């Protein structure tokens, strides 16, 4: 288990979180390399199908980063993301997948340090949970 | 050496018959086995209670309306709500309409071809198409038309005929209007004539044919058992509601109980060679694979119901009821008489559908009563194939905590096994296992119109049960326990 390296797929919104990740990069902040970032225009763009597919194809965790409520570039996208991800977490638990493996964080463009903290924290948490067990033929 | 009939045909569901022959080519033993299982009682746990009418109807697409209303009645009990009288009538109207379809389907499509084209007819002709060839296109079209009428009645009231949606705790989802009511009335009138014609056909083709009559009366196709069915307050057959009545092999009343007390009257057991469970009367006990007064094996479905009752509630059906018992004696233990009883029920269902379609309340819009708090409840109906019981326990959010379903054909499973065994012993000798003879063995189960999708919804499982019975002042008057 100690050499288990979690694979975490991250969907970061272009306007806030992705910019923050850039800032973390230009500020030379070091953080866990387990996060694979995919840029989307808004956290509200993240279709639950993306998350499920990520889990089905090998991700041990999925992180979604968006603007703080009230600050969405498209006004209301993150409100939908909030409701959507909460519902998806419930359904994931029904599928036997721990809800901690799906995480939604509000990270604004200036919060490079928060990107670092969340990445490290989530990597550690997933490492403790272990690799995602996918349901095979026998459950 | 082993001869297998695989799969059995002209029924709902999966099954196989395995016959062991000794060196002389005579039957050592015959086993009727059910190889399927889907697990409804397990995966319904955690589901919304009000989804059960639509979930459980997928146990069987031939008799979905039976499950739909057993479930709906169970929900009424769980939510402690009495549907408005008009809703009750509308449910019963749809229920009887579905019997028109189901019993017509069985006689002409499933079991009847054996008589109409003959049990030894070539395989390719022993089916509805062979029947149409034999009776001619005119009559064939009448058969198709009336089966469709039964479906249409369900579709009008329930949205869909297969897997309807109208049953809710406390009532029905929508009313019917005058145009729809009138359409149902006309269909019911036609169905009555069609049922009478079918009974006449049975008389001409079957009863007046010596070979068939001998088959019916033969020991090969006879089983002396207890009989069970729902009856109204006059002990007449009722499909939608009533008390459970059991008569013994001599025709005397053995017990008469409320549906919710069924669980105290029946036990079940397992065998290693079949997935279906095997119920029997607790008060008599399991005495092995035999029939008779000492054995707890009982039968449900048309013959079971008619034997367990004292008549039919509508006039034309009652005449036919009397005729059958005058011809065959009372009670009737001849398995093939299930076909006759089924046609009598087709006539009753048609008459009852007409009665209800003319009820002044049937187009009422007052179809919903407000449910109370969710709890535990039992719903009992007579499916076409026999007594059907749904028993649910809902949690405080109305989700299913546990469900137990005791299904019509399961009740008949031991009798079916015995009937097949007897038929094999009676018919197969000296290695003669022709297609026609094997088909005659299948006729032994077809008479029951079994529904093995129903019978194998789940693995055996019962839940500890405690039913608290309160009177109208909410005083606890009785606790019925089973654990």
């Amino acid at each position, binding site marked *: 288990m100690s050499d288990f390296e979690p694979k975490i797929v991250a969907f970061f919104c272009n306007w806030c979180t992705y910019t923050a990740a850039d800032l973390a990069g230009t500020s030379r902040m070091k953080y866990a390399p387990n996060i694979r970032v995919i840029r989307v225009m808004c956290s509200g763009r993240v279709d639950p199908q993306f998350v499920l597919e990520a889990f089905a194809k090998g991700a041990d965790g999925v992180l979604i980063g968006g603007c703080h409520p009230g600050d969405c570039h498209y006004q209301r996208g993150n409100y939908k993301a909030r409701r959507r991800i909460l519902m998806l977490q419930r359904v994931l638990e029904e599928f036997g997948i721990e809800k901690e493996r799906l995480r939604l964080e509000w990270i604004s463009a200036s919060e490079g340090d928060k990107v670092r903290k969340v990445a490290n924290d989530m990597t550690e948490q997933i490492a403790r949970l272990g690799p995602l067990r996918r349901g095979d033929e026998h459950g | 050496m082993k001869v297998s009939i695989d799969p059995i045909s002209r029924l709902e569901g999966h099954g196989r018959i395995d016959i062991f022959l000794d060196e002389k080519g005579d039957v050592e033993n015959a086993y009727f086995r059910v190889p399927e299982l889907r697990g409804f009682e397990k995966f319904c746990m955690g589901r919304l209670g009000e989804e059960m009418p639509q979930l459980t109807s997928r146990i069987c697409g031939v008799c979905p309306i039976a499950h739909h209303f057993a479930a709906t009645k169970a929900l009424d009990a769980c939510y402690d709500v009495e549907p408005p009288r008009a809703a009750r009538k509308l449910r019963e109207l749809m229920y009887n309409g579905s019997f028109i379809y189901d019993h017509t389907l069985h006689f002409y499509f499933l079991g009847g071809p054996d008589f109409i084209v003959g049990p030894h007819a070539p395989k390719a002709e022993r089916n509805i198409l062979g029947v149409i060839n034999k009776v001619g296109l005119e009559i064939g079209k009448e058969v*198709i038309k009336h089966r469709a009428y039964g479906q249409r009645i369900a579709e009008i009231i329930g949205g869909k005929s297969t897997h309807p949606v109208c049953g809710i705790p406390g009532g029905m989802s929508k009313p019917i209007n005058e145009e729809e009511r009138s359409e149902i009335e006309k269909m019911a009138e036609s169905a009555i004539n069609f049922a009478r014609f079918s009974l006449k056909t049975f008389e001409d083709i079957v009863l007046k044919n010596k070979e068939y009559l001998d088959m019916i009366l033969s020991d090969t196709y006879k089983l002396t058992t207890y009989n069970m069915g729902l009856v109204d307050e006059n002990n007449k057959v009722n499909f939608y509601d009533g008390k459970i009545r059991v008569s013994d092999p001599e025709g005397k009343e053995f017990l008469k109980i409320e549906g919710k007390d069924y669980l105290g009257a029946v036990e079940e057991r397992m065998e290693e060679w079949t997935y279906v469970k095997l119920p029997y009367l607790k008060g008599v006990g399991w005495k092995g694979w035999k029939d008779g007064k000492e054995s707890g094996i009982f039968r449900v479905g048309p013959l079971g119901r008619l034997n367990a009752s004292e008549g039919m509630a509508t006039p034309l059906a009652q005449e036919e009821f009397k005729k059958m018992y005058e011809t065959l004696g009372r009670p009737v233990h001849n398995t093939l008489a299930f076909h006759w009883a089924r046609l009598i029920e087709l006539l009753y269902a048609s008459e009852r559908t007409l009665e209800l379609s003319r009820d002044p309340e049937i187009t009422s819009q007052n179809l919903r009563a407000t449910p109370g708090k969710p709890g535990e409840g039992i719903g009992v109906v007579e499916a076409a194939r026999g007594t059907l019981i749904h028993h649910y326990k809902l949690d405080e959010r109305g989700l299913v905590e546990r469900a137990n379903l005791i299904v019509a054909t399961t009740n008949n499973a031991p009798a079916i096994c015995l009937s097949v065994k007897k038929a094999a012993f009676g018919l197969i000798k000296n290695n003669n296992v022709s297609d026609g003879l094997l088909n005659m063995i299948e006729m032994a189960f077809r008479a029951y119109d079994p529904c093995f999708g129903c019978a194998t919804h789940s693995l055996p499982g019962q839940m500890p049960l405690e039913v608290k019975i309160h009177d109208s002042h909410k005083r606890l008057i009785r606790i019925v326990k089973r654990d």
Partner: protein
Amino acid sequence: MSMAEKLKLAMYWAASCGGCEISIVDLNEKILDVIKVADFVFWPVAMDFKYSDVEAMPDKFIDVCLFNGAIRSSENEHIAHLLRRKSKILIAYGACAYNGGIPGLANITNRQGMFDTVYKTISTNQNTLPKISARVPEGELELPQLYDTVKSLAQVVDVDYYVPGCPPAPKIVEASIDAIASGKLPPKGSVIGPSKALCEECPREKTDKKITAMKRTFEGMPDTKKCLLEQGYLCMGPATREGCGTPCINANMPCTGCSGPADDVTDQGAKMMSALTSVLALEGEENVSEENVLKMIQEFPDPMGVFYKYTMPTSTLKRRVMK
């Protein structure tokens, strides 16, 4: 048409309820037209042909096989392979063969989970259980092995076409039979039916989605003219393929999703989750606290059963991971 030219049809049921069989019988008089151009060579509900008759057929003897029911046992899978070999065209007919169907809900458990219920039974001979191979005095009797996981037909064999619905609606059945009889079949792998969501076909008035709270189907009295989802009743219409004629909605009950997803969607449940959460408590969403959002979502009863009622085996995750 001479005998040699008649199409050879077969229809088989795996883990099925028989409703799909009935949907064909519900062709009523049209069945007489069908048999002018086709013969049924295997159809256990209505005809006496046995497995041995199918085994004796040359490969690709059957022109079109309508296979309904999910794959839940070794027998179901065995016959799926057998019929694939013997058929030119194999159609996954109905929700169970296409999506897994309601029996697919058993993917929240496995065989052991179902068997555990058995040990708590009060059957009088509790230690006797069905066996795959049982010894009786005369010899041995075999039963099929039940699988832990329910599968759709395409998850075990190559499938040519899919017919949606539970059961397929009359319009869809007719379209399928017409396509088969005329030989004018769509590209391989197609679903026979229109491609948009049910809302397209639904006759109800659709205005603004301002749902403040969800209602259970027996709560209140649904207005018969307005969109059910707008009234707070959970209707799967937005995530469900159109083509059935909306019979459930016409009976004043919401759609439960039996036709499966529309084109280009892999996970119907995910789509409905997305659609519902987009519009639930839309009014004043900017003022709702995190806590109250959480509460609203937590109170939603049984998302699994509602969103994945017919499609769990073919959803992205397919089944629950058992501990």
